[in-house]
């Protein structure tokens, strides 16, 4: 393993100063970073361990009705916070559909947002990868790519963002609070991740030293609690990334959809907000036809990047199903198999 410096700053300001240096990277739970280092994919000179910083592990209800989730809140802790799960059920369901119980216990909210793609060519250091080594080429493009992107990809990169958590967050207009050398700022989560274009090595809009300190859900996000689901199709019931996933949230008034939110996971280099689909649902009754129309709108720009044309049809069907489930109403309890098409089958204790 490459030798590296390990620093444990006492304050956010110290952390930013330490991480702004070239070759430095933040370490939270390390559920992704340590694997990347063991695989020689990431070779940082300095790890800035933020897990001992004070005040980043709180879940706070703010005066304006929004919820502020500290970046160091654990994924499992957040998902199992009863009040949180009640107010933002699709987010809790997505969290519980991610990784494995052991990883969820370790992983943090901030780290989850910045996890790297699972493209095999990114991980295989003998392959060409524009994301890992700018300008080297993309071996995924003509390689084994049945799980790669169908939206927003470029010839430089067809990788997907693997997070489940980000999908309902982006649907609910989550905001990311960032501390950096220039002070504090906040951006919409939808603007955090970049599409690859010609610079897939630049995955987010963060500058060196920028530290995500919190994720905020605006007050309006609570308005969807009665009709919000996350649905994830994967190749095994737990511990597998989504082939395609969707978060659907509806505000239904007098039998009509007052407002719809829809985002897709596993389809692009970022959690994919489907605004055109949301627009066609506004003000209409929650019918199968409306959901079909929304699905066509959501995937209108999709195109295969390889052996993955099926993902477009699958994504359409997942959109329809997720909207149908959301319209039926959030279940009283999160199912034992969260986000699974088999959530309704009995027998499973948990995934």
């Amino acid at each position, binding site marked *: 393993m490459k030798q590296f410096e390990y620093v444990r700053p006492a304050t956010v300001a110290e952390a930013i100063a330490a991480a702004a240096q070239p070759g430095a990277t933040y370490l939270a739970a390390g559920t992704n970073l340590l694997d990347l280092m063991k695989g020689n994919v990431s070779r940082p000179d300095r790890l800035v361990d933020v897990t001992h910083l004070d005040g980043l592990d709180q879940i706070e209800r703010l005066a304006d009705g929004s919820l502020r989730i500290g970046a160091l809140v654990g994924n499992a802790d957040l998902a199992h916070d009863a009040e949180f799960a009640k107010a933002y059920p699709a987010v809790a369901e997505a969290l519980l559909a991610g990784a494995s119980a052991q990883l969820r216990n370790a992983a943090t909210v901030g780290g989850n947002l910045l996890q790297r793609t699972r493209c095999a060519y990114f991980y295989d250091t*003998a392959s060409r990868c524009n994301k890992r080594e700018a300008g080297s080429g993309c071996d995924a493009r003509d390689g084994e790519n049945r799980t790669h992107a169908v939206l927003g990809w470029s010839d430089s990169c067809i990788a997907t963002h693997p997070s489940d958590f980000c999908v309902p967050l982006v649907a609910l207009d989550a905001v990311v609070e960032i501390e950096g050398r220039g002070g504090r700022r906040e951006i919409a989560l939808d603007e955090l991740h970049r599409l690859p274009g010609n610079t897939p090595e630049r995955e987010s809009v963060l500058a060196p030293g920028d530290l995500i300190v919190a994720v905020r859900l605006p007050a309006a996000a609570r308005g969807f609690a009665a009709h919000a689901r996350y649905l994830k199709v994967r190749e095994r*019931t737990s511990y597998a990334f989504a082939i395609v996933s969707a978060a659907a949230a509806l505000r239904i008034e007098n039998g009509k959809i007052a407002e719809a939110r829809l985002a897709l996971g596993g389809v692009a280099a970022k959690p994919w907000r489907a605004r055109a689909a949301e627009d066609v649902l506004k003000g209409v009754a929650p019918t199968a036809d409306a959901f079909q129309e929304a699905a066509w709108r959501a995937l209108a720009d999709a195109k295969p990047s390889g052996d993955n044309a099926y993902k477009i049809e699958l994504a359409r069907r997942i959109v329809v199903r997720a909207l149908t489930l959301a319209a039926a109403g959030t279940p009283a309890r999160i199912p034992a198999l969260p986000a699974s098409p088999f959530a309704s089958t009995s027998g499973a204790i948990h995934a």
Partner: protein
Amino acid sequence: MPELNLTSAPAHLRHGSSIGQPLTRRDGVLKVKGQATYAADNHPPGMLFAVIAASSIAHGRVTSLDVAAAKRHPGVVEVMTPDHKPQLAIDPEIKTNPFVFRMEVLQSNEVRYANQPIAVVIAETLEAATEGAVLLAPRYETLPALVGLDAGKSYVPPVVGVGNPTENHLGDVDAGLAAADKKIDAIYETPAQYHNAMEPHAIVAHWDGDRLQIDMPTQGLMLSLARVAELFGIAHDKIHIRSPFLGGGFGSKGLMAGPPALGIMAAKLVGRPVKLVLRREQMYGPVGHRAPTRQRLRIGADVEGRLTALDHHARTVSSTFDDFYEPAADASHTLYAAPAIRTSHDAVRVNTGTPLFMRAPGEATGSIALESAIDEMAWTCGMDPLAFRLKNYAEVEPITGKPFSSKALRACYDQGAARFGWAKRSLQPRQMRDDAGLLVGWGMGTATFPALMFQAQARAVIRRDGSGAMEIGAHDMGQGAWTALAQIAADELGLDIERVEFKAGSSDLPDAGIAGGSAHTATAGAAIHSAGAAVIAKLADLATGDERSPLFGAGNTGVIARDGRLIRRDDESRGESYTEILARAGVAEVEARGTGAPNPAAMEEYAMHAHGAVFAEVKVDPELGQIRVTRMVGAFAAGRIVNPHLVKSQLFGGMIWGLSFALHEEAITDRRSGRIMNANLGEYHIPVNADVPPLDVITVEEHDPHVNALGIKGVGEIGITGSAGAVANAVWHATGVRVRRFPIRIEELLTQR
């Protein structure tokens, strides 16, 4: 290695027969406390860490290694390369016997597959050795890689599996097909799979002068020892291998592979003990795998659904430098009573590590294709799949015409079907739904695996304090040898299991053969049986020949050993304890050796196989294509069951492996580079707990007087066969979509709504 402290829970203390009792594993407490010493847990003083640098190309040669950069790294002690390594006593390319495979031990710069070892870095710490391997920054001359089942010109190998004929014939297949009323002709594909034992291959090698101490997981202590002896030119008695526990093997730890040999070379090079452990991704190359197959099945049946012909051809691959051929088509030899059978194989060479035995080699790959095809044939004939199998039930082994030594398959079908509720199955596919609207499908498969025997020895002792010992270099891969073999030993010595010191897992004990072919309990058990009988006979001689003994003169009548006593067979009131016999005779102990081996006469006369029937229920989301197995019932007849608890665990494991074969497992090889793109347990999918439904195993009573003295057939591998096909057939029954490429992927089920 400290003395093993094996335990039994008090509830399991028993008197009388140990065989047949469901003892929990005696090494269980050690394992849950982390006190079971696996190979990599050994740290002799002065030990260094060795890390393999592996090739990132699949074909070509290494043109440069930056040895200086690696050596400059703090903590790096040595770099072993083709130009700088200890000499071996023989060329590692020479096959001295059929169980020797060619290995890469830095004999040249040539690269034959991805992940081939190309150098070894030895350092004071694991971290330093790991970074040293990165700093070597190898450069290559890359040649085009041969990848896939169509990589080149096919050829017919001389043998498949272990010396099986490449082709077998019975009757006239072409005539049978021509005369058939109904026919199918279908092609099935299975992918490359890797053993992925939880414990990676590891070695701690320690040279002490010309003596060599090795800690290494092995399924074949004496085979490994013999290979080490010939590679390093040292006498057998200078080598000691300890292998008390294996964290799984599944065939990948059966034969000595290159990496442990590199560990021994590294220790020799630096003159200090060395530990070498493979990284997970390095297990995808030099330590064997299951080769991919493409199998064509042509089956004909008459108007009544009786088979007229069965033609099974399998294409597979081997490496460019050695030969192992997955004998997939041989699965069609024993199960179904076709009057005409042809099985054949061909192969292409690809840039891969040499394929090897992997749990049910040939049987697993062949079974999923055959059981799928039989299911298709039943549907074509308009028959229930179980009724079709019963119609074509083989009363004698079809390919040889030999009677079976025993075959309780009919009972397996009956009991499994009853437990599952098979009679309520709809004939048509896509007819069943659950309350949530999910498609429900039921499928079945027949399980079979040969009842094999190898050779083994054991040494038995009875001591004056009334205790006994049984020594045998047997292997516990997790299947429970420490427990099951000790149970046999206890019965053979006529002692409670707690009074028997059972020794295993070390090369200084009598040769137990290999833990493979589902034959270890039968083989080692036969040796234990024979050694136990011999030592009891010696003890009986002491008693029956001594007029002071109450057993005097019982020589012709015979005596029974029970509870530490010998008693007259014809008068159980007369007997005496082992302690009394040995005390009076003035000896500290008596000992005897025994041998277990196959009986050639019985093998000539009978076909010997275990059988089973597996029933599976799957649910499939009709729109999204995701599949979930919701129920499995397996009924197996495998002769005598030594420990029902361990046997069920073995069968559960096999059934889960079958589920995995049908739905999950696949090594994804980049079609251009020949590199495996999912060489880790995150992306090489096996079922997680949430994928495994409640499993129901029935062990069907079966008495077999011919297979061996104990009537044991073995259960290590049979659970995979039948199960994989049952799941695949259930997916068809649920959806109406017949997928012939495994594992079944979601996209194949999206074609229909």
